[in-house]
């Protein structure tokens, strides 16, 4: 795992990646377009962040067809859930220690 000095995972340094993880934490799965709406980013930008999270195996993809239209849905993996929870716990600790 790529972890920076304060214990926070590097994959979560980007706000967009953190946003993707937050949305997937409370939804079983989300379509590409739904994520795009929530984050208000371009296709290319979102795709690159999704790719990074996929590479870490934090999220996974399920591709299917609805009629003739391709449908891409993303969901959080177990590893992703664990990493996200750990990230939250560290954030909390860091905020407390600074007070």
């Amino acid at each position, binding site marked *: 795992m790529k972890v920076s*000095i*304060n214990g926070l995972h590097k994959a979560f340094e980007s*706000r967009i990646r*953190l*946003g993707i993880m*937050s*949305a997937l*934490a*409370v*939804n079983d799965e*989300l*379509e590409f*377009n*739904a994520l795009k*709406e*929530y984050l208000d980013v371009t296709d290319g930008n979102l795709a690159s962040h999704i790719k990074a999270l996929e590479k870490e195996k934090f999220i996974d993809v399920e591709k299917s067809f609805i009629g003739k239209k391709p449908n891409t849905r993303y969901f959080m993996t177990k590893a992703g859930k664990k990493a996200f929870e750990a990230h*939250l716990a560290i*954030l*909390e600790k*860091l*905020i407390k220690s*600074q*007070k």
Partner: protein
Amino acid sequence: MKPEQDYTRDIAEIRSMMERSSKFLSLAGWAGVMAGIYALAGAFAAWWMGYPLMDFVHADYGHTLGIDFLWNVFLVAIIVLVLAVGTAIWLSARKARKRNEKLWTSTSRQLLGSMAVPLITGGLFLLILFYHDFFFFWIPGAMVFYGLALYNAGRFTYKEIKALGYIQIILGLLSAASPRYGLICWAIGFGVMHIVYGIYIHNKYER
């Protein structure tokens, strides 16, 4: 090391994203208040046109009251529905704009989807009742199915909406058990309770 503000902002953004992606919070409290006012006005109009209040024998009042009267009541109900839905969409669009959010998102689609099945079933059921001349079950039918829709919707918006659903279901069942209190149950459920919940949501979430 990032400064403290950054971490607090991270947490705030995580929270906001979790909320936005799972609940539709642009639903305006005032929409409830307005819907309640329309419903009360509609109930008053129905009463003024001669809708029996409490003291009628429920058997075949379609014949007692006449088909013209029933069409008028039907028309009032449709006007109330269109006004209430129209106002809700308009006020929610305005609130979404203020919150810098979109109205038509995956969450609002889920919200509408959760209401669609009970509402469409209910609508068809009411048409079937009309066809069979079972007029005195209009109000119970409308209230029970609307209550079920709200109960479902509670998962995708303010949790209080679920409780409002329970109230509509209970009042609907009461008015089915005792149809002579139909208009009263309607005025309390669709009228007064919408206003109460609208004000409550406005005070709790919009100030």
